[in-house]
């Protein structure tokens, strides 16, 4: 860089538009060239050694007068930045922010350290008797099918609709036992019905009942007749 280049880029330096590499070259020239260093002082710009600080102050001033602070958005991206899952554009934007923000840089360093340290807490030491206790409670206790069956059974029984379901299943079993034609009990319902029916030559319960009722009504009627005849004979004597 010569003095002419220096002058042509002076405005860009003051506006903070120089990329880091060019700024570095610019500063090297200012350190070596007394004239350019004086020029920088005359225009009120930073001294070569304090240009970064000057630019940082300039950025802060601009942000304060526009959006306030970009730290909020940077913080949203910091966990993904730590996990390296941020897309390229956002990663570069976050890194640019971190270059200029000491607080977020510190937070980012803490997040990186946490990512390294937290998985170390995944295991907590237990005394040697723990394994023995687990083995005593599992391996030597009972066959697995037994404990499985007990778990299943208690699960079924403790269901709220168990009683209704048990009744339903019971009914199904009765129907299957009595209803399937291949079962030896298939004829049982029919036999039951036959038992209820009277034999043809013996009077049925209903016939006997009818006869008994007929006799009863005849007796009642005779009582009425007797009473009426008594009344008539009394009238005649009077």
């Amino acid at each position: 860089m010569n003095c002419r280049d220096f002058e042509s880029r002076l405005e860009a330096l003051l506006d903070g538009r120089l990329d880091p590499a060019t700024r570095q070259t610019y500063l090297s020239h200012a350190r070596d060239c007394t004239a350019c260093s004086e020029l920088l002082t005359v225009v009120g710009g930073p001294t070569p050694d304090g240009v970064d600080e000057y630019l940082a102050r300039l950025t802060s001033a601009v942000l304060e007068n526009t959006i306030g602070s970009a730290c909020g958005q940077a913080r949203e991206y910091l966990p993904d930045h730590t996990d390296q899952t941020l897309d390229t554009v956002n990663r570069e934007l976050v890194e640019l922010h971190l270059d200029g923000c000491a607080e977020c840089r510190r937070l980012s360093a803490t997040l990186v350290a946490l990512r390294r340290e937290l998985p170390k807490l995944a295991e907590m030491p237990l005394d040697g008797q723990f394994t023995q206790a687990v083995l005593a409670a599992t391996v030597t206790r009972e066959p697995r099918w037994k404990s499985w069956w007990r778990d299943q059974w208690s699960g079924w029984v403790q269901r709220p609709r168990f009683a209704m379901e048990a009744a339903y299943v019971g009914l199904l079993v009765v129907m299957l036992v009595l209803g399937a034609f291949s079962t030896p009990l298939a004829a049982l319902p029919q036999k039951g019905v036959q038992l209820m029916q009277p034999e043809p030559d013996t009077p049925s319960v209903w016939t006997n009942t009818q006869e008994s009722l007929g006799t009863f009504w005849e007796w009642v009627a005779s009582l009425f007749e007797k009473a009426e005849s008594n009344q008539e004979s009394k009238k005649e004597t009077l």
Partner: protein
Amino acid sequence: MDLELQTLLDRCRQGDDLAWEALVRRYQGRVFAVTMHYMRDREEARDMAQETFIKLYRKLDSLRDGEAFLPWLIRLARNGSIDRLRRLKTRTPERSVSVDEGPEIPARRPTPEENSLERWRAGLLHRALDGLSEQSQEIIQLKDIQELKLGQIADLLALPLGTVKSRSHRARIELAEAIQELDPSFGAP
């Protein structure tokens, strides 16, 4: 020698007692860390860890394979711990689970003679974690300590993936800030 998890699981299913013992030894520290996180009492957490392995033993036939095993085991430990906590709270309503019952945490930075730096860091992390909400602590435990994937945590907590992700980000930032308050030099190069 580290046996492959799949081999261990296959042997356990076949009723191999040695494989079962190896599986218990390999995962007891993790299960205990999870139960300790919820129970906050060493004895209760130990009992719960034992109960988790007994349940695991009864469910050997339905063990999940490969990558799905650890999330499944953690789910078993978490759900069991929460159930046990509910039972304990119902039985003794005055019982309050205090964070002070947690693992031993040094209150000041110990000298090299007293403790190793690693242990001091673990204590610092526990103290910072204790200051977070239960929700944040749980998400840190599952995502950053046990290193479950966000999808697995979403399944475990029955929450949408986006919610889990945003909670995880928030919790990590909260933890980082809490750590900085406790020790500003934490993470410094």
